């Protein structure tokens, strides 16, 4: 048992209070420590990925208590991949926040950012479902602070909606955990996997309620229709770097669904069979359709991108709800793609806002730095709409291929291809109105407060695109890796035996005690 795996949680947990306590009034020091922390996280995440790349599972028992009794952190290929994705995304988002001075517009941006990372990484690494709830709350409470960073009435109003919606989600999560504990008497995910199998066919009421409630909670996080209403206004009103970081938050929901429903309630479990084919797949299809129609209908660029996030989550959920190894492999490939593309698009929207002061989709005179921004938007739109040559196209192809044997195959193909067309039209409309028509609009005096975005801002967006291109070029390798992850998820014996069978401390009883 090594201590490496807890470091991605401990490092931001110590860095955040340090930034608040010691560097409160020195934005320069905050920036240095924040970036250094994220760089260290990338190193840690890469070493974790390397450690588990041979298919082994690393684990960490807190205080060394044996598995079902103590809390465990578990790193397998899925969770370490998500940790690495989060850390890399965080670096570019942070660079953008520094380059665009977003972190100066309110207090404690960097501390909240670190707490947010702690929550997200903890949610990926924990092996205990109550602990998952706790990390959800940590990432949420940090996100509440980040969401209303820099203030403003519109932002506060959107923040209230966001907080209330997530509070309801947390309450449902607790109800689900209570039901699960009452039925099985354990909250360790590996132990739950074993015990849920042993529940008799006539006693499944509690298990089924817990399974459906958990799916609802994770679907709220993943913004699956009809639980997506919180997303458009909160992502659109959130500060751009925060919205870009939130691109990983919807994926936390997707990760939780993959983890819980391959391990605790696997598709072959009779009590919860049909949950995916009957409910999740149609909901995912509707999400994709609504998201892309929203792209076409949006009147502002930030709403448009928020709806494209809903659409891309719909695509992820379609692939997940097929619940075959091919489907999960495609979903994981697409998750990496849509996180990077969504984050980049939110940052590009902020480049537009910096250049011309608003995000309305109307023809306005050319903004500062219009050619560079237009070029980046073009690449981002191609990635998000899923056109060749970028990875969105490959991801979509993989999803379509995985759905080939599904009963709803016709629906999947029709909606995925139709939604792609609608999103291409939507993005083309937005791009031509914002960038192209600008050239024919007479010049006026520039709006107060607009300026050319800084080079570091462009570099951060460019970095995300470089990752997307690498994700496309090495698609074969990445997809091979996600296929191995999917196979491991469906045959999770290594995970179970690593967590449950390695001896740990059971009791410290000495002679003379009870």
């Amino acid at each position, binding site marked *: 048992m090594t201590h490496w795996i807890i470091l991605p949680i401990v490092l931001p947990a110590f860095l955040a209070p340090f930034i608040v306590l010691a560097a409160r009034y020195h934005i320069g020091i905050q920036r240095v420590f924040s970036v250094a922390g994220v760089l260290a996280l990338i190193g840690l995440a890469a070493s974790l990925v390397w450690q588990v790349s041979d298919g082994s599972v690393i684990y960490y028992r807190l205080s060394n208590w044996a598995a079902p009794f103590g809390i465990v952190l578990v790193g397998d290929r899925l969770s370490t991949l998500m940790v690495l994705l989060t850390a890399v995304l965080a670096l570019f988002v942070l660079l953008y926040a520094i380059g665009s001075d977003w972190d100066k517009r309110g207090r404690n941006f960097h501390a909240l950012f670190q707490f947010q990372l702690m929550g997200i990484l903890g949610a990926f690494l924990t092996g205990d479902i*109550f602990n998952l709830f*706790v990390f959800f*709350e940590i990432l*949420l*409470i940090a996100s*509440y602070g980040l969401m*209303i960073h820099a*203030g*403003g*009435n519109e932002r*506060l*109003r959107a*923040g*209230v*909606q966001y*907080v*209330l919606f997530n*509070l*309801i989600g*947390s*309450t449902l999560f*607790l*109800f689900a*955990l*209570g*039901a699960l*504990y*009452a039925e099985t008497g354990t*909250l360790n995910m590996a132990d739950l996997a074993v015990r849920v199998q042993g529940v008799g066919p006539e006693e499944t009421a509690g298990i089924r309620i817990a399974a459906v409630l958990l799916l609802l909670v994770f679907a709220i996080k993943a913004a699956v229709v009809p639980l997506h209403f919180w997303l458009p*206004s909160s992502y659109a009103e959130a500060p751009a770097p925060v919205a870009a970081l939130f691109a990983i938050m919807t994926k936390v929901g997707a990760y939780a669904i993959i983890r819980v429903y391959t391990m605790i309630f696997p598709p072959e479990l009779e009590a919860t069979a049909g949950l995916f084919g009957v409910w999740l797949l149609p909901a995912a299809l509707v999400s994709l359709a609504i998201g892309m129609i929203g792209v076409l209908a949006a*009147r*502002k660029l930030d709403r448009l991108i928020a709806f494209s996030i809903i659409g891309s989550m719909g695509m992820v959920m379609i692939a997940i709800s097929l619940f075959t190894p091919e489907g999960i492999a495609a979903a994981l490939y697409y998750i990496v793609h849509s996180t990077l593309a969504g984050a980049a698009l939110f940052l590009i929207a902020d480049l537009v806002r910096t250049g011309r002061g608003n995000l*309305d989709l*109307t023809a306005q005179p050319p903004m500062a730095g219009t050619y560079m921004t237009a070029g980046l938007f073009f690449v981002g739109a191609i990635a998000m709409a899923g056109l060749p040559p970028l990875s969105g196209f490959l991801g979509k192809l993989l999803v379509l291929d995985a759905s080939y044997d599904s009963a709803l195959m016709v629906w999947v193909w029709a909606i995925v291809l139709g939604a792609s067309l609608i999103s291409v039209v939507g993005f083309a409309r937005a791009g031509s109105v914002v960038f192209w028509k600008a050239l024919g609009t007479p010049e006026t005096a520039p709006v107060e407060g607009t300026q050319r975005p800084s080079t570091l801002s462009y570099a951060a967006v460019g970095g995300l695109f470089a990752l997307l291109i690498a994700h496309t070029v090495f698609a074969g390798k990445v997809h091979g890796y996600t296929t191995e992850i999917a196979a491991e998820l469906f045959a999770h014996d290594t995970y179970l035996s690593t967590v449950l069978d390695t001896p740990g401390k059971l009791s410290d009883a000495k002679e003379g005690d*009870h």
Partner: protein
Amino acid sequence: MELLVASAIGVLTTAGVYLTLRLRTFPVILGMSLLTYAVNVFLFASGRLTIGAPPILSDGATTYTDPLPQALVLTAIVISFGMTAVVVMISLGAYLGSDDDHVDDPIEAAGSEVRK
């Protein structure tokens, strides 16, 4: 006792759900608080209800109550307490800023967006 606890959870949840569906922030926050009370009692009951039994090893005790839900409830109480404080502060800020405590988006704002 089971009946009493179960109906208490049911009443709290019903009132909580009703209040969270209201349009203004204050009833919604009250509803959220009722829901968290309900879930706390529910979690507490998930370890089965036992009267007068100690949760940790004690001399002369023959039956024990499950200590884990008590720890879980403690965590849940602390978290929900903090979250309620946060949501009260944010909604107070939103109310003072825009002089309106509705949870949904105002219709005027949507109209002005059309006019732009």
